[in-house]
Structures are given as structure tokens and as C-alpha cells.
């Protein structure tokens, strides 16, 4: 370890992403000395390239864009005096809990009484012919280039993989002005949450389920792609090939935990394919099989950022407790709160009969005046719509994975819930706006923004143009953070079909 005297910190956190920052914040709150090491030149992990609004609990910054959550976490960490060392590449964990890292070309080491590994995940590669051509990129890299460095990797993009990452990055590519030529998914159904998928469908992006990329074409870089249909065993069906004119393929086929450090540290592992593969075994405190070494976030199994943050909190509290910085009672109380949130976020009621109450108003209610239409029926851990409604017309309750229910008689048609839904799944519909027309208000996050008074092409849920509409109003409030609310007059017969406008369409 060289000649240098090894420095010490009660808690050393590796990785300044959502899990690492939350862990550091909690350990510091208890009074521990905390050092966070991160190899990047900016903290926040993957949060700063997440420009969409996050699902989650209203209490925990749900409805905020990922980078805003990152800003909040950094502010909190800074106020508490958490020390974050950037450009610090951790290359190993050694005996006696020493963490070795390289910074500015110099080898350094720090000893932690507790170590929290929060190194996140790494993207899965997908082998296919032509898969090494320039122009084939991972979704994470694409997101970094587009949302942080503001450069598009191509003009016409094929997304490979229909998980949440695939559909979210597709949406973000369109926001940045690229064309998403299609989404290819080997499985027979789309994997992402329906509300994320619906945004893409409204934009008219073709979804090719039971399809794979047979080949990326191009001499020296991507000039096209051939996709093909597959059978249930994922074998290509001869003759089903289709050529797509694309200049970039974006690969979004899942992540796996970055386990190098827990592996080096001697942690035991289990193999859980649905969580990304090999995962260090950890207990209810997030402590691994090696005493004093904890894991949190995607390295402990691939889940969502909101869960990573809670796991980080749990690890931070547990570390502080084991260092004697909390009395047993306080520690247990704090851990119980986090565990309750974690449990709620992971709750699914697969076998339960979902109640018949929904977010969709009755026919009678549509006749009576403007009303919210909540097209969200999946079990997502998310509830900002509930707190957005000051009239108590929207109920999610507990667990947080309940789909929202609309109490239509309480809904005043104010529309405050529209920009609050991270899934952009709430619309306001005034069926009897005039004798012949209805008014629909919907969220909009593309450029260019249509002009007030202008005529536009209206699309249905599948992105098909079904009518013409007139833009009545556009609301752009600072607190909606970029989400515009468009009010549009449409022929009454389409009140239940129109859900948006053609992006970069003729009328704009």
C-alpha cells in the first residue's frame, strides 16, 4: 500500500449514485465520519441523465425528474458534511477493511470501520452479427450522450429491448429530436410499465414484439438493420425478415450488478437471474457475508432507483447502529420505517382480484362536465396523483402499488393532477365543451410546441392520426418543470380516443 499513512473513516461508501448518497446521508445523520468515493468526475451516478419524472412516493420526491432528485441528494449530503471524493477509482478492497483507489494518477488507500458498496449495475451486452459496428450503442451510453453531453448518436434509431430503460430512452431520444424507428423485443410482450409504453405508442413508434435483431448492416458503421420474427424458442422464422432504415441501434436488454468489489472482498454470492445474475448474499441490514461490508442499490440486485435509495438508507442506518451511534431502539425504529417503504414498493398482488374501481369516469360523469381520466391500471409503486388532488378525488392508499381510483363525484376538473403523473397517464376531458366539440387537456414534453389557435393532427393511443384539433391553450408553469399542458378542441365523437398530437406534424 505504499509509504503513505492510511487514512481512516468510520464509513466508506463506494459509489455516489442514489444508493451510495442515501447511505452516506443516513450514516452521517447519526454522526459517523463518512467518505464517499466515486470514479466519475461528477456525483449522482445515473441520476443526472434521468430527465424523466420518477415514480415513487410523494414523500420521497416522486414526480421529480431524476436529475432534480440528484441535486436534492447532493444538497442534503453537502449540508450534513458528507465528504465526496470524485475521480477516485476504487480498484480493490483488502484485508483490514482497506479500500484502495487511484486519484489523479496517485494510489491511495482508506480504511473504513464499515464499507458500503454501492457500485450499481452494468449493461448487458447482446451478441448479434454486426453488433460491434460503430453506431451500435448501449442505452446508458446513449442517455449520457444525449441528456448530459447533448449529442445524438444517430438520426434514425432502433431500440433493442422493451424494458423500462428501452422505452424511457426511446422517449428521451424523441424529445432530443431523433426518430425512433421501432422497438424490438424478443419476448411476446412489452416488458416496460404500460404508462411508459403508452407514451411511445402515442408517438407512433412501432413495437415489434417476438422480434430480434438478426443483423446490423453496414460496411464500417451502421447503415441499417434487419429484424426478424422469432418463435417461442427464440428461433428466427425464415422469411420474416424486415429491413429497417436506421443509422443507430440502441441496446437496452437489462443490467447486471457490478460485483467486482464484493467478489474481491470475499462475499458469498447467489445466482438470481431475475435480479440480474450473481448477487452478493446480504441480510436484513444489507450486510454481506463479510462482516462490516454492506451493499445497497443495483449491486444488491437490479431494481429501480427509488428502491436503491431506500436500500442505501437502510445500509446507512444499520452501519451507524452497528458502530454504536444509535441506541438499539432508535436504530430499530428507523430501520422499520425504511423496511416498510421497501416492502410497499415491492408488493404485488398477482393473485388478488383487482378491485373494479378504476381511474376512468363513468359515461354519466363525462356528460356532467370536465373530469380527470387516469389511464393507469398497473401496480406501480407511485402515488403523486393522490397528493396532487386537493379535493380527495384520487385515492391510491396503501400499499403504494395500488392502482389509482378516481372518485368522480369529487373531481372538479381542475387538472392539477395532469403534470403530477410521472407516467403522463392523466388526461382531462370535457366532453360537452360545445355542441359538437370536446376539450382535452394532456401533458406534452416535445419540441416544437404547437401554436395557440393552430390546427394540428390528433392521434389516438396508438399514435394513429384520427382527426384534426385546434389548440385552445398551452400552460407552461415553472413548477411543472418542462411539462406543458395543452388544451385542445376536438370533434366530440373522438373524446374517448384522442390522446395527443402528432409530434413534428403538419400543423406544427
Amino acid at each position, binding site marked *: 500500500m*505504499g509509504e503513505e499513512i492510511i487514512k481512516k473513516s468510520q464509513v466508506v461508501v463506494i459509489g455516489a449514485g442514489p444508493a451510495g448518497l442515501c447511505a452516506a446521508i443516513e450514516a452521517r445523520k447519526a454522526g459517523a465520519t463518512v467518505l464517499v468515493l466515486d470514479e466519475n468526475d461528477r456525483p449522482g451516478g445515473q441520476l443526472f441523465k434521468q430527465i424523466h419524472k420518477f415514480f415513487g412516493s410523494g414523500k420521497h420526491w416522486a414526480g421529480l425528474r431524476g436529475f432534480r432528485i440528484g441535486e436534492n441528494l447532493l444538497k442534503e449530503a453537502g449540508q450534513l458534511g458528507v465528504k465526496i471524493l470524485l475521480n477516485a477509482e476504487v*480498484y*480493490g478492497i483488502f484485508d483490514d477493511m482497506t479500500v484502495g483507489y487511484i486519484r489523479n494518477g496517485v494510489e491511495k488507500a482508506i480504511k473504513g470501520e464499515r464499507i458500503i458498496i454501492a457500485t450499481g449495475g452494468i449493461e448487458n451486452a447482446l451478441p448479434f452479427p454486426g453488433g460491434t459496428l460503430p453506431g451500435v450503442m448501449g442505452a446508458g451510453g446513449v442517455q449520457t450522450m444525449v441528456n448530459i453531453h447533448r449529442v445524438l448518436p444517430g438520426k434514425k434509431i432502433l431500440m433493442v429491448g422493451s424494458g423500462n430503460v428501452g422505452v424511457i430512452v426511446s422517449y428521451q431520444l424523441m424529445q432530443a429530436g431523433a426518430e425512433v424507428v421501432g422497438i424490438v423485443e424478443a419476448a411476446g410482450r412489452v416488458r416496460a410499465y404500460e404508462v411508459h409504453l403508452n407514451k411511445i405508442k402515442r408517438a407512433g413508434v412501432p413495437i415489434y414484439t417476438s422480434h430480434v435483431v438478426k443483423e446490423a448492416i453496414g460496411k464500417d458503421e451502421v447503415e441499417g438493420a434487419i429484424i426478424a420474427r422469432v418463435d417461442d424458442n427464440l428461433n428466427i422464422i425464415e422469411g420474416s425478415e424486415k429491413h429497417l432504415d436506421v443509422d443507430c441501434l440502441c441496446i437496452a436488454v437489462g443490467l447486471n450488478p457490478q460485483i*467486482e468489489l464484493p*467478489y474481491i472482498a470475499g462475499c458469498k454470492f447467489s445466482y438470481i437471474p431475475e435480479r440480474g445474475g450473481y448477487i452478493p448474499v446480504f441480510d436484513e441490514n444489507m450486510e454481506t457475508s463479510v462482516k462490516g461490508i454492506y451493499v445497497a442499490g443495483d449491486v444488491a440486485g437490479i431494481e429501480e432507483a427509488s428502491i436503491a435509495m431506500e436500500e442505501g438508507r437502510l445500509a446507512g442506518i444499520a452501519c451507524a447502529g452497528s458502530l454504536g451511534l444509535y441506541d438499539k431502539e432508535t436504530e430499530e425504529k428507523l430501520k422499520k420505517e425504511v423496511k416498510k417503504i421497501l416492502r410497499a414498493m415491492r408488493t404485488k398482488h398477482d393473485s388478488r382480484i383487482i378491485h373494479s374501481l378504476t381511474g376512468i369516469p363513468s359515461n354519466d360523469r363525462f356528460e356532467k362536465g370536465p373530469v380527470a381520466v387516469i389511464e393507469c391500471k398497473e401496480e406501480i409503486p407511485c402515488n403523486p396523483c393522490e397528493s396532487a388532488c386537493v379535493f380527495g378525488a384520487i385515492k391510491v392508499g396503501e400499499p403504494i402499488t395500488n392502482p389509482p381510483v378516481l372518485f368522480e363525484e369529487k373531481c372538479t376538473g381542475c387538472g392539477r393532477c395532469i403534470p403530477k403523473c410521472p407516467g403522463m397517464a392523466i388526461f382531462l376531458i370535457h366532453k360537452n365543451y360545445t355542441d359538437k366539440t370536446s376539450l382535452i387537456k394532456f401533458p406534452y414534453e416535445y419540441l416544437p410546441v404547437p401554436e395557440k389557435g393552430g390546427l394540428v393532427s390528433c392521434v389516438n393511443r396508438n399514435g394513429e392520426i384520427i382527426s384534426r384539433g385546434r389548440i385552445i391553450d398551452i400552460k407552461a408553469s415553472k413548477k411543472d418543470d418542462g411539462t406543458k399542458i395543452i388544451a385542445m378542441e376536438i370533434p366530440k365523437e373522438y373524446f374517448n380516443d384522442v390522446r395527443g398530437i402528432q409530434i413534428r406534424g403538419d400543423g406544427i
Partner: protein
Amino acid sequence: MSHEKNVCICRCEEVTEGEILRAIEEGARTVKGIKIRTQATMGLCQGRTCRRLIVNILSKHVDINDISKLEIGIRVPVRTIKIKNFIYDEGKGYE
């Protein structure tokens, strides 16, 4: 997974799926076994991209549940860093 045997698995050392399957035919049953036969995982990135793919291919031939039996080849340093960072010079300190 892939549909042609000459598809690239290890991007750094340019090792194809066919070469990895041949290594398994020759008796490779671990990541190390494949590495010493094909050079897969030995490039600049040190297996960060292909290790998982190789384990997936191996899974059709061996039980992969126990990571400790796969000689998976993760070792220090786990980051792409320069050897010169480890050289200590009496006069100048670390290079």
C-alpha cells in the same frame, strides 16, 4: 441468444461464439478454461462486457449457480488503471 456462431462475444480480443463453443468441446468448464483457450476476457476491459455472456454460454453445459466453481477471473485491480500508478519512486513518490 445469438443466431450465428461467428458472432462476437469478447469485443476486446475479438473472440466469437463459435470459438467459445469449441473451447467447451475441448473440455473448458470454467471462465478460466475458456480464457486460456481463447483469450476471451483478457483484453483491455478485462471481461467486463463478455464475462456474463460467457457464463450464459457455459450455463448450457455446467451448473453455474455456484460462482466460486467458475474461476470467473475477477481480481485486483478491478478498474482499468495504469501500472505506473503502482510504481513508487524514492525520489518522486508515485509517478
